[in-house]
């Protein structure tokens, strides 16, 4: 009989809760079709709450390593699990009034729970094998979620594009991992690091493996020049899924990237550091310039999220405890900002059903006067994207660029500053369009069904973004505590 690895069930309880919730929901829904929507909301939110409760309970505990040392539960894992679960809960709240959700709520929710489970696995993986399992679990479910709006061609296209390009990214990553295995004889991050530190004779294979792994990961974080899927997928996917991708997927992909380069590849920093620096520069400048010419707001924010990925890369490049704290804070703050912004866009799209729901700059003209609360919240989110005080975005920008300046990467911080100036240009375009007095859109729009959920989402995100800017101490402490578990090279 084959002896399986010992499993610490408490450590993986958050994932177990999500998977049980997903399959339980599918099973229950077959018996109670009539109550599908309510059931999805209750079971979905319930599973997420249980998962978060397990994570919160384990917060601050000593790290636990389980599954034959291939999965580590430390505070970084917990932080990602909690953030992702909150993001998923916001997605469910945003979906309440959505027609597709009424028909296929159980599938949508089940897939969402599986995405969260996969993301938790990725966040805690300490081996390329676990990483790949988690990555595929969440990616495959996410492909379907992107294509979930079956009646919309754009959504189907987004799902298909994401499937094809995302799979290529995964394949490249696996291929790179195989090379690294060939050179070092280990899939474990620790094993790879130890073998590389000793120095072997397989330099060319290590180089190739590192390059392929980096390409695969840059694909996943959406950094240039491997960003081409981002604008199309973000634009086409159902808006709440876009918000989830901009927030949660980015966070998870960056944590995976940070863990790999810092825990598996510290010995070859001379290989990955220049690559990441170039990627960061190109991404910040390219993403922001491309965003400048967009007329579709969803697409614009997609491009700006490409630029944000470049900014987050600085945190990894700087690679001291300050940089990593900045990285985690920046990404967590970004998640709520992006989710809030896309929630506002979702509200706008519901107002514009007749115009096919496209959130164009032109279509948004004067909209701020008919939905004052949503528009004002959008202003805050956009200013947070641009890094203005008093929002969490400012603190994120300040910490990341501050650590870059103090650790000898002032040029990266200056590039970041240039990117921010460009960013301000297009964020202001959205604000001006919403408050354009030349066109008064239909003041007093009818209350669309399900707007309560969206309002709640916007309120939650607004609170986090503003509190993160006004009293950021607690969030910074949490980020510091979580990022402390990333091995620091310098």
């Amino acid at each position: 009989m084959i002896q399986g690895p010992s499993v610490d069930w408490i450590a993986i309880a958050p994932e177990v809760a999500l998977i049980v919730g997903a399959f339980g929901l599918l099973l229950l829904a077959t018996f109670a079709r009539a109550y599908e929507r309510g059931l999805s909301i209750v079971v979905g939110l319930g599973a997420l709450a249980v998962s978060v409760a397990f994570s919160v309970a384990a917060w601050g505990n000593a790290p636990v390593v389980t599954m034959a040392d291939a999965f580590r539960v430390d505070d970084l894992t917990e932080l990602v699990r909690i953030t992702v679960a909150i993001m998923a809960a916001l997605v469910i709240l945003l979906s309440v009034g959505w027609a597709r959700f009424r028909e296929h709520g159980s599938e949508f929710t089940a897939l969402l729970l599986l995405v969260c489970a996969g993301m938790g696995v990725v966040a805690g993986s300490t081996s390329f094998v676990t990483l790949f399992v988690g990555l595929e679990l969440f990616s495959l479910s996410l492909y379907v979620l992107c294509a979930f709006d079956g009646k919309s061609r754009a959504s189907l296209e987004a799902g298909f594009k994401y499937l094809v390009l995302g799979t290529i990214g995964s394949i490249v990553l696996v291929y790179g991992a195989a090379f690294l295995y060939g050179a070092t004889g280990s899939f474990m991050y620790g094993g790879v690091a130890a073998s590389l530190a000793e120095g072997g004779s397989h330099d060319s294979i290590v180089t190739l493996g590192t390059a392929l792994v980096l390409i695969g990961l840059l694909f996943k974080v959406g950094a240039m020049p491997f960003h081409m899927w981002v604008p199309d997928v973000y634009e086409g996917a159902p808006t709440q899924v876009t918000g989830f991708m901009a927030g949660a997927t980015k966070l998870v992909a960056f944590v995976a990237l940070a863990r790999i380069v810092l825990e598996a590849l510290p010995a070859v920093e001379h290989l990955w550091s220049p690559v990441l620096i170039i990627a960061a520069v190109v991404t910040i400048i390219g993403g922001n310039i491309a965003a400048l010419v967009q007329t579709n707001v969803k697409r614009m924010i997609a491009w700006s999220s490409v630029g944000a990925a470049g900014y987050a890369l600085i945190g990894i490049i700087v690679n001291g405890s300050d940089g990593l704290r900045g990285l985690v804070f920046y990404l967590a703050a970004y998640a709520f900002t992006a989710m809030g912004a896309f929630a506002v866009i979702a509200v706008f799209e519901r107002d514009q059903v007749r115009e096919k729901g496209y959130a164009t700059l032109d279509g948004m003209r004067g909209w701020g006067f008919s939905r004052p609360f949503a528009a004002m919240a959008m202003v805050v989110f956009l200013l947070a994207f641009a890094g203005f005080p008093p929002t969490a975005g400012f603190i994120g920008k300040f910490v990341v660029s501050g650590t870059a300046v103090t650790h000898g990467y002032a040029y990266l911080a200056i590039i970041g500053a240039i990117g921010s100036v460009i960013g301000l240009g297009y964020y202001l375009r959205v604000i001006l369009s919403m408050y354009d007095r030349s066109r008064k859109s239909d003041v007093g729009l009818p209350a669309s069904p399900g707007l309560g959920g969206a309002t709640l989402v916007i309120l939650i995100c607004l609170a986090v973004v503003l509190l993160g800017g006004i009293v950021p101490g607690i969030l910074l402490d949490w980020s510091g505590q979580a990022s402390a578990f990333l091995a620091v090279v310098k």
Partner: protein
Amino acid sequence: MITVSWLIALPAIAAIVLLLLPLGQKIAGYLALLVSLAVAGAVIGFIYRYEPLGGLQFGDNIAWINPLGVRWHVALNGVSLAMVAVTALVTCCAIGYGMWARRERSHASFALLLLTEAFLIIVFTAQDLVVFYIGFEGMLIPLLVLLAAWGGKGRKAAMVQVIAYTAMGTLLMLLAIAWLGFTAPGGPNFDMVAAIGRGNDWVFAAFAFALAIKSPLFPFHGWVLPAYRESSAEVAAVLSGVASKAGGFAFLAILVPLFPEQSAKYAWVFITLGAIGFLYGAFLAFRQPDGRGVVAYSSIAQMSFIILGIFLLNDRGATGATFQMVNHALVSAALFLLAGWLETQAGSGSFKHLGGLARSRPVLATTALILGMAALAVPGSSVFASEFLILLGAYENYWWLGAIITLGIVLAAMYMLRWVSAVLHEREGDFVGTHNPPDLHRGALLCIVPLALCLLGLSIAPAQFTDRVNATTTAMINAAAKEAGR
């Protein structure tokens, strides 16, 4: 006990209330005016209680962002008190003018003006670099929205220029601040006192760049003319009157005390640019075809002059520069309001269409003449007092610099006289005939009179002002003056 934080919180909270509640034009206007008057009243109280030799006063210093070592530290010294007072006054007048002009969606415009006031008071009172930065960058947003939403035809291009210049400058300053704070001995510390003398040339340059753009100092003034021309009158008054002073103030209160070595080493750069800007702005002001152009270029000239005064690094120069900042704030705010009034009443601000307005319009003629005389520094006026102080300071260092400045002062008289005569006298312009503008009457007059009265008061008793700020300005330039060997 009322502290400075109240002065910041009150307009900020009022702004949020005004933004969120869809109040009517009148109620919103009176609420905003009341709040701005309350702030001004509190400032008057501070002026009475201020001890010139008492150092920082009426302040708060509480832990804020512990992991980053940022503290909410705001307090008043002599120079901040002067700037806060003038900010409060100009904001009252700007809101009053906005009420008179009946702006569309006025509750939002009043809210943004109050928000600008809050951020400006943060700038003038911050004793922590991050807090200072929050004010410095934060004020950009309400001002940009005011410009973009209520501006003139060319507002989009003006906005792009403002963003390109000022945002770039402030972001570089943020990097400099981060460097100063994070490298502080004993963990991150952003208190200004902790940063004294620790900066290097690069950090100094980043600060100077941001402040030079904001002020504006020649040759970083590219954004100024479009911004001042396309804004509505009250916004232009706030921009040129007080927002630009954020730059001049920070040169004196932050750059010079924090970087004494570099300030002494590079003082010649600022003196040279200041002198060039003073003459250049004056020449261009003389050639402008409209009232706003004259005031805009004269603002560039005056701010260059003020920065020159600061970098003389002696008592007279620094006190004169502070005094001149206050005077110029009052003069340019009043002139922009008057120019805006002329545009609405006569249909144009261009000198081609104006002229001969003095006839049967005694109030307008008197007001314009008083402001014109104040601006051209007639002996006895407060502007004369401040310019004379800077002039004395310049002679103290280099006689030839004094000679150049004197030339600039003469030019100032020329362009202001040209403005007065082009508006009030000469042949009656075609727009004056067709529109037949009324005399300056209650509403608009009430917004301009307080500014003019303050100028008169300062003219009568300039020592009241200089006595209060002298100790502070001396302390600010002391270290740099020692470095420069004065």
